[in-house]
């Protein structure tokens, strides 16, 4: 693939992530933080986010499968996930977490299960998309190209 073409498709792809609401402007904040001194910042943070989230989702599944659900355990996990997703700009995960916490507050087990499914769905979506994004970036870098800077403003 032509380098220019790759760069174009990366841009389009990134744009689609924002348009779909998978990511919000917070992700741009991360990209802004990435510079020569810290060239892999975004992927580092996102990788950390994936590791963290995988663990949290696992814990959540376990907690919710208990006979008696201890909401005191569940809620901090959701809070954590909400904070992380909010920090990297995984908007849809964050929004699902907000709903999730409401159900925690109501101690609604059924609602929590539904929310967990939703959160997982959104999480895998963003994970998938971001991994694709990084792959595209790697391809560009491997071809000796520059990662085009995202424009602010959408």
């Amino acid at each position, binding site marked *: 693939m032509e380098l220019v073409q790759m760069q174009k498709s990366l841009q389009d792809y990134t744009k689609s992530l924002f348009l779909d609401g998978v990511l919000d*402007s*917070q992700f741009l*904040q*991360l990209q*802004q*933080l990435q*510079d020569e001194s*810290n060239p892999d*910042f975004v992927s*580092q*943070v996102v990788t*950390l*986010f994936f590791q*963290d989230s995988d663990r949290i989702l696992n814990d959540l599944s376990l907690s919710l499968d208990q006979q008696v659900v201890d909401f005191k355990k569940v809620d*901090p996990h959701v*809070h*954590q996930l*909400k*904070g*992380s997703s*909010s*920090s*990297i*700009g995984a908007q849809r995960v964050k929004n699902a977490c907000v709903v999730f*916490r*409401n159900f925690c507050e109501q101690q609604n087990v059924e609602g929590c299960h539904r929310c967990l499914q939703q959160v997982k769905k959104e999480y895998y979506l963003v994970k998938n998309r971001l991994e694709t994004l990084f792959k595209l970036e790697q391809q560009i870098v491997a071809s000796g190209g520059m990662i085009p800077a995202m424009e602010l403003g959408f």
Partner: protein
Amino acid sequence: MVCEMETDQIEEMDVEVLSSMWPDDVGTQADNQFNVEKPAGDSDTLKEVDIAEKRTMADLKRLPELLNTTDQGSSQLTNLVRQWEYMQDHAVRLLREELKILTRQREEAEAKELKIIEEHNFETEEPENVPVLDETSHLFRRFRQKKRDELVDSKRVVIDEEFDTVAYWKQKALSLEKMLEASTERERRLIEKLNESLKTMESHSAPVEELTQNLKRAEGFLHFILQNAPIVMGHQDKDLRYLFIYNKFPSLREQDILGKTDVEIFHGGGVKESEDFKREVLEKGKASKREITFETELFGSKTFLIYVEPVYNKAREKIGINYMGMEVTDQVRKREKMAKLREDNAVRKAMESELTKTIHITEETMRAKQMLATMSHEIRSPLSGVVGMAEILSTTKLDKEQRQLLNVMISSGDLVLQLINDILDLSKVESGVMKLEATKFRPREVVKHVLQTAAASLKKDLTLEGNIADEVPILVVGDVLRIRQILTNLISNAIKFTHRGKVGIKLKVISQPSFASDKEQNETSVWICCDVYDTGIGIPENALPCLFKKYMQASADHARKYGGTGLGLAICKQLVELMGGQLTVTSQVNLGSTFTFVLPYKVATPDDHSDDQDEFSDMVDHHQPEPDDTTEGYFQFKPLLGSIYSNGGPVMGNNFLPHKAMLTSPIKLINGSVADPSNSSGQSQTVQVENGGYMDESESAHQYGNGNGHRCSSKESESCSSSQASSEMESELTVSSPREEEKTETEVKETSQPKILLVEDNKINIMVAKSMMKQLGYTMDIANNGVEAINAVKDTSYDLVLMDVCMPVMDGLKATRLIRSYEESGNWDAAIEAGVDIKTSESEQGCERSTDRLPIVAMTANTLAESSEECYANGMDSFISKPVTLQKLKECLQQYLQ
């Protein structure tokens, strides 16, 4: 009952069975199911299956009698009887016919004999014939008499005749003898025939025998069918006295039943009803069915389906009733159970749908409220920016027109901020998120501070006064933040609608009001009544009811004239009610209004200093112990130097923030003066003190020796309301002010990198924040929770703490409180008390710094539970909403790291 029946059926059929309908253990063996009225002593009758053995006519006498006198009865029996009657009749008729023939022949013979006697009148002696039939003998006698009479007459005639020829007489005698012989022969045959007839008569008893057999079979069949059935049958005469009963209650003997009515036999529920029912059937003459539940001492509660039919005799007269009752207790019970279940089901379904509806509505409401709160929160942040920028703009060089426009902009912005704060407050109270804190405070000081604050922003020639009754305790426990909010709200409201005269607060202790429930009452609690009165425009009576409603003002006119959101009083009312009190209003148009709220407080001991320091030091001047202050009962504030403050937006202040409590007199702030173009009077106004008036925190505190006075800024006097915005505004203010920059040379900032502590538990957040800091040129320390933060603060002298609110182990609010407590008291006792493991090695270092106020900036998520109010209430200076962005961080650092 049903299962009993089933088990009973296994028993031998021909033994005497006590019907399972009745209890097995009552009654005597001698009693029978069939009871027919009859002479006592002849008791065992119809009930036996083996009737043949014990049959006596006496047993059956009464029943056929009954059957004969009625139209009904067993049709089979009737048919049998009819057949039998018919056969009897037939036999009799045959016999009669034969008899007639015989009689005729005899008559003929007699006639012939008479003729012979007439002819031979010598024969006087008649043959003495034995009469065959008694019935005919008198005829015969009569005939003989007649014959004798005729004979006398004929004798005379005969004598007159001639008796001449012997041969003739001989001949005559011979023929007569022959005839006599024939007659005798006939007579003999007749007797034979009669005997034969008698025999036939006897043989006629064969159908009777057959009939009896049939009857026995029928009876046996009925008995076989009925012996275990839960059925009671009976016949009662027209007085409803039993003549016959089948399957009576076993403990009753027949003399207890027969000849008696139901009411004479049983007592209890249902008896009267059944009696009435029977009577009704008897009267109407129509058979009918009814279900009757009996409640008798004898057999408890049983339901019977009763069939009653009237009984007529052959003359179509009613002579009684037949009745048949089937016990259906279980069926009825089941049916009722089913009905009840069905009903329950319906009710449950209805309730379910109702619940679902309610849940749905509640969810909707919750969502709406959550959205409102989130929205408000989201709007507030950018708006703060707008207002803040506008305020910065106002410090730049502007011409008169620009300044005027800017002032409108700022006051409008403040208004919107105020409205949003109100909405947030309301939704917090309504959604139950609002939590009350119990802190010790001095009511006198609270009143004084509220009035001071109000006086500071006073634009009118009003006297503000406070009057506290002597019996009001010096120290009470309550949610001082909310109480201040209510007071401030009511006072600003009063000021708003008052143009001359005075506005004041009056506190007095009252006895427990009637609306309070008894359980709230205890020895240590005291009810304080607080009047906020004014001499303003008053409220018309018809407007009073909607006064406390949301978004309502006394009239649209007022709303236009005085502005405001109409939320203030609604919030006050909700807060007062949340605290278990009541808010009321009395008012007279043009004379003024008095808002009264009554609240319960716990009385605290005033000398308990160790505790109140960390709790309410913000509210109470510990560092400025004027003996008067704690007990003084009267304050008055008059606008000094006329109306000095004209630049302020609308007077509002329900978001009074304790750490910004402005205790200094307004005059003290006026170092520089700016001509206020908006002042129409032309009087030179010392408006805001942005530049010269700004005091470095520590300076300010030192200068006035007032722990509460940090960050006293002109903003306070300008508008107490724009609390959230103000901190940011101030920062911008100081940054942009050239004079300020000249002034800011504190050692820390010059010598080295400022020391920043980030308290955050989320690794990703830490990573992002750290990276942002790096980009902004700072490094920072990390603490993962409140406890770590306290230890870090203790050991290191930080210039800024960024504190997450929601954290494990110890949340940011508590950590901040404890840090503030340390700043006030100079020791970590409160933290140690709260269970924080304080390493005491370097405690001296901390003591040095104890007078400084460490800037603590909260990092909040947009949730109700982490609202900015709570951050301020816990001693935080500002907040950044999450997620943290470079811009927000930059602003924050600029504000606090100068």
